[in-house]
């Protein structure tokens, strides 16, 4: 499949692969960050009710 | 040893969390590399010839960037007092702090250098050489730099003074670093000899630097 794009197929492939990695990383970061903030928010809401020391027992 | 590993972990954590210290030095490095073509012109042959010099000077300056805060931050919030009181010798504490600084500053510079070398049209052998020489030479720069950081710890505006104090001391490292790197660009110059001297300079700095820095910190206390 690569060969049909001629002698510079490697450059084309590299350009697309790097782009996918960067954008994929960006989307992944947004998702992970969003989940982390949600978790923090939930933890903060819970903490008002229970103390950490008691939660451990 | 656990006290030292705890310190190392804390230093890394702080470097990553506060303003992304590791990234800043690399960005500064990139800015220095970007400025050079504006100054000497975009001629690729010329840039390839002066490439090693640009990279080494850029890395040297970038490595100085956050050095003045290395002990000052701990001195301002009282952490340094507690470190002096620790059962661990101050020389080892200083060494660990310097190593953490190198991991978050010098090492990223060495890793980024080949990429910036590509922008200066350096041949691929020279890219490997610049990465290797910077990896071997930046510890030397850091361990010389910590002496200045310890000397200026009590001064409010120590940053500029620090640069003036330590850059002359860094000249030998710079000379042999560039010599070894140029070997890959200029065929006639040998690589291994200046490289070994560079390694020796770094190792020497790793012994001398912590001793001098710890002494300076002790005198600077009160």
């Amino acid at each position, binding site marked *: 499949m690569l060969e049909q794009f001629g002698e510079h197929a490697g450059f084309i492939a590299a350009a697309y692969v790097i782009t996918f990695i960067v954008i994929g990383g960006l989307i992944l970061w947004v998702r992970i960050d969003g989940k982390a903030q949600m978790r923090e928010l939930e933890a903060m809401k819970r903490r008002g009710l229970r103390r950490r020391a008691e939660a451990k027992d | 040893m656990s006290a030292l590993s705890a310190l190392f972990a*804390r230093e890394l954590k702080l470097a990553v969390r506060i303003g992304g210290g590791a990234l800043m030095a690399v960005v500064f490095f990139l800015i220095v590399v970007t400025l050079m073509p504006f100054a000497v012109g975009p001629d690729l042959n010329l840039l390839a010839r002066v490439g090693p010099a640009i990279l080494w000077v850029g890395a040297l300056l970038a490595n100085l960037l956050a050095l003045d805060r290395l002990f000052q931050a701990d001195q301002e919030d009282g952490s340094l007092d*507690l470190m002096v009181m620790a059962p661990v010798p101050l020389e080892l504490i200083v060494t660990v702090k310097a190593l953490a600084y190198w991991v978050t500053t010098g090492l990223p510079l060495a890793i980024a250098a080949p990429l910036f070398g590509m922008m200066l049209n350096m041949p691929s052998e020279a890219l490997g050489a610049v990465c290797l020489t910077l990896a071997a030479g930046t510890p030397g720069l850091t361990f010389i730099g910590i002496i200045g950081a310890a000397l200026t710890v009590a001064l409010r505006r120590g940053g500029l003074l620090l640069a003036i104090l330590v850059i002359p001391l860094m000249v030998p490292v710079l000379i042999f670093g560039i010599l070894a790197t140029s070997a890959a660009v200029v065929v006639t110059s040998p690589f291994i000899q200046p490289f070994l001297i560079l390694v020796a300079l770094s190792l020497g700095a790793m012994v001398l630097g912590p001793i001098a820095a710890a002494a300076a910190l002790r005198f600077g206390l009160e």
Partner: protein
Amino acid sequence: MSPPQKPAFSGLELIGDGLACVRGGRRVFQGLSFRVAGASALALRGPNGVGKSSLLRLLAGLVPVERGTLTLSGGKPDTPIAEQAHYLGHLDALKPGLSVEENLTFWAQFLSGGPVRPERIDAALDAVGLIDLASLPARFLSAGQRRRLALARLVAVTRPVWLLDEPTSALDTEGQDRLFSLIADHLKAGGIALAATHVDLPFTVETLNLAPAAMELRA
């Protein structure tokens, strides 16, 4: 609830004899002698600038001893006093970017030189009333809360001598009560405490009065 105190200290005595201190070219005091036995506290008193902080820093090994001798009998042999003492100075030695728990865990590991069990950290945070804020970055703490966190360090790592420089500053009444009960526990375990303070401590202490006039005269 009082923090666990497994190794009770016995037969401690801190003796200073003919101490002199020079800071910034100025002779702060000289010919200073004192004696504190285990399980007792010494309150350092006197007007500002008389050398209370200097004496504590001298004991902590942060200021060189100009003249005189300083011995801790009954402690670990061949170990400087600084390594057997806690120093609670004006600065809290906290990093705003680390959480309350991370700050304390670091100092506990660093000062004890070994791994520290999380229960011990929790107990120390509980003793100063910060357990609910364990995961909060230290930058959100008020001055009094920072002070409490610094105090938790003394609870988390056991050391025979406590050097306290104005320990009550920035603390509210509740925080002061906690501080006093922690000091009382430390003394009960046989430890020594030296405190430079203007507040009357609610338990029996000996007092070392540093008088400026005498100092000037001798200097």
